[in-house]
């Protein structure tokens, strides 16, 4: 069960213990239903009975040799709130992700739509060079209706626009060739940008590079592929594992040399930190080392601040902004460093949105049959954003930004973009 199909690493004790931690944690469930009462999906639809039922309860009936017991599991969005609120450490979301993998294995067909949503990177590679044309088609309502009918991506789902210039193209070309480019020689940090920054939102990567360089770091950008999370959440574990291996092989060299690896995408960093190990059962010395060295960018910057090493030459920015903390960030289990970080900027007043989930949950809210569930889940977030400041809001995760923007019309930025602005870098 725990063989690693890509590297064929033998199952070691740590892998086994991690696997058991997830599977056997079902035995710690006291059936209190706290998880169900917090699950954003079961709270808005009766198509999904909730985490206790599909997680620890159904787990008792799951046998690798028998067919999956319950199709409703497919309605779990993977947001991870259940694992977070469970007082008894039951790994409900992780159990669900594995159960879904089995479910699709039994069905033997993953819809083309899910395969497509799992491949944001491939889409980016194909479309970025022809971005204006691709965007024209994606913005065309007739095309979107066709896409919904044929592929099953909801016509109103918030698809991001492709960027003509990729982030890597900018970094290796424009940025490094600029006469002002004088990287630090003593401090280096690795940046894992992920697909969204590369193909859809290079401005987030530019802000991150600007903030890191302003604080005296040379930013190193190694070869990398999509973190694999979109595939993982669409039950394509083998494809996701392949990407995981490619990334670990590329990043481990830097991890060994003691570099920290920072990311602006909360879901990419969560994959590197924990999903590779706990969900994909990809657990080797290398993957553990990469996990150890990975930081969310705000986590990294706030650590610098605590060590007295963060520059605080901010210009005041007089603004009250709503901040939505994405589920994929909360699952880092480290708190919300972005809030403390942004509040270092004079004049900034962060108004933390008090609602669990925006409903997009990666690629969940794109699907025709789940779009409305996603919008219902996210309604409290949208309402609060509109109420606090409907023109600008902050969120660390790209898909959440697109969802909230789609629903509220607010301009959405990543916390480092606010930092870069306050430093006067953009």
């Amino acid at each position, binding site marked *: 069960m725990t063989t690693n199909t890509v590297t064929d690493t033998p199952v070691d004790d740590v892998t086994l213990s991690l696997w058991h931690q997830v599977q056997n944690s079902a035995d710690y469930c006291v059936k*209190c*239903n*706290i998880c*169900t*009462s*917090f699950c954003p999906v*079961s*709270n*808005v639809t*009766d198509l999904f*009975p*909730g985490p206790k039922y599909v997680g620890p309860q159904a787990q008792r009936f799951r046998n690798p040799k028998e067919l999956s017991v319950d199709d409703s599991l497919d309605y779990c969005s993977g947001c991870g709130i259940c*694992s*977070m*609120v*469970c*007082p*008894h*450490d039951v790994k409900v979301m992780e159990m669900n992700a594995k159960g879904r993998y089995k479910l699709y294995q039994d069905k033997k067909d993953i819809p083309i739509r899910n395969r497509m949503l799992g491949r944001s990177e491939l889409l980016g590679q194909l479309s970025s060079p022809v971005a204006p044309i691709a965007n024209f088609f994606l913005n065309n309502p007739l095309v979107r209706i066709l896409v919904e009918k044929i592929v099953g991506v909801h016509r109103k789902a918030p698809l991001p626009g492709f960027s003509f210039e990729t982030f890597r193209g900018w970094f290796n070309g424009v940025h490094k060739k600029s006469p002002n480019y004088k990287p630090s020689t003593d401090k280096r940090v690795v940046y894992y940008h992920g697909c969204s920054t590369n193909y859809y939102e290079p401005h987030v990567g530019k802000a991150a590079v600007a903030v890191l360089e302003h604080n005296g770091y040379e930013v190193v950008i190694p070869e990398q592929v999509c973190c694999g999370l979109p595939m993982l959440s669409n039950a394509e574990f083998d494809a996701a594992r392949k990407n995981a291996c490619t990334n670990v092989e590329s990043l481990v060299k830097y991890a060994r040399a003691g570099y920290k690896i920072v990311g602006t995408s909360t879901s990419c960093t*969560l994959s590197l*930190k*924990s999903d590779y190990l706990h969900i994909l059962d990809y657990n080797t010395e290398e993957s553990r080392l990469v*996990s*150890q060295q*990975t930081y969310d960018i705000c986590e990294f910057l706030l650590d610098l601040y*605590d060590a*007295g090493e963060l520059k605080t030459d901010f210009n005041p920015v007089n603004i009250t902004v709503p901040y939505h903390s994405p589920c994929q960030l*909360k*699952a*880092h*289990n*480290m*708190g*919300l460093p972005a*809030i*403390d970080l942004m509040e270092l900027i004079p004049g900034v007043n962060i108004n*933390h949105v*008090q609602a669990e989930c925006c409903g997009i949950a990666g690629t969940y809210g794109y699907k025709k049959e789940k779009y409305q569930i996603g919008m219902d889940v996210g309604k409290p977030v949208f309402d609060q954003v509109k109420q606090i400041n409907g023109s600008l809001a902050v969120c660390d995760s790209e898909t959440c930004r697109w969802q909230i923007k789609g629903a509220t019309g607010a301009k959405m930025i990543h916390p480092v973009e606010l930092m870069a602005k306050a430093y006067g870098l953009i």
Partner: protein
Amino acid sequence: MSRYDVVVIGAGLAGLTTACQLAQAQKKVLLVSTGGGALLLASGCIDVLGFQPATSKQPVTDPLGKLDAFLAEAPDHPYNIVGKANVQTGIETFWEIIHNSTALEYWGAADKNWLLPSAAGAVHPTCLAPTSLANGELTKGGKMLIVGFRELRDFYPALITQNLNEQDLGVEAASSVINAPEPLAKNMNITPLELAKAFERSDFRRKVVQSLQGQSKQFNRIGFPAVLGLKQHAEVLADLERMLGKTVFEISTLPPSVPGRRLFEGLKASFLQAGGRLIIGSKVVEGLIENGRVSQIQMETANRLRPLTAENYVLATGGIYGGGIQTDLDGQVWEPIFGLPVESDSNRHTWFSERFLSNAGQPVSQYGIQVNEKLNPVDSNKTPIAENLFIAGATIAGADWTRGRTGDGLALATAATITKQIA
């Protein structure tokens, strides 16, 4: 450099109220918890003392007045350490937090218990209750109709009414079970939370009231399971009372508890409002005590342990049930974060009483940390182990909420005791 004055471990009633009070006193507070606490499962009322002596079947009507007698019978109960004054302060401070910084309403006083119907039709003596539950006060008498939903499988109006009527409490109860209207119709099984969300829709409420047409006339009060809305509870209650033209009350359900969730959300919001920082989902796994002080604790994140430092630390990890005290099959009992001493019997046969639902409590639940009157942990010579570490709620030795129904009162009294010292 530390960003916090206080780190509170555990988001149960004890941890949340301590954190709330400290944050409101301008302290920089971090609250970190593995998950939600027992208040998400309990009634949502505040029990201070329900039975005296613990095994008595007669409910206490004056909790503060009966406290001395209770403590004479139970000298090892931690109420003895915090003292009566702190029990009273705890209740008053809780009431202030609720009324000044949340949208909730609680009623009651330290010298009077409400006597409310429980989900089994027993009498639940409790000190503070939210309006909707307090409306069920049994001594008010009269005729009450208790309504259930066929799809809410864990709530049996017939059982409640039969038990209430048999006890000669001066109320006359009758029951009615209706089908849940759209959007919940035809569900096999629904949870209290799903019903609570549905009740926030006016069309749902209207259909519920329609189903009761003709039935409700002869009754003074109409009781529902505690599912009357979550965020918009006050509006839901008012609207039902208006449509039915009667007093409406709630009866607490089996877990998960909607009134408990309202309280959790209220305290959480009030803590965040006061500038507190909250991490739910992370476990504190280690704490270092050096020279009689906690110097650091370690919290488990997705990929690494993170050290946390503060001036003071509050351990509110909920005893055996909450995970603050651990046991194993070999009969070992231990406190997992700091390795604080726990007095226990390694013979597991002595851990449980004969009766599962005994009002005398279970010996194993009483295993916990010995403390002094400041609530610092102490060793067997009563010497404090760490002067900047304070133990709150169910983790204290002798705490067992089933013993006299004292869990919430103890959580609040310890919160008050600790706040007084470090605010």
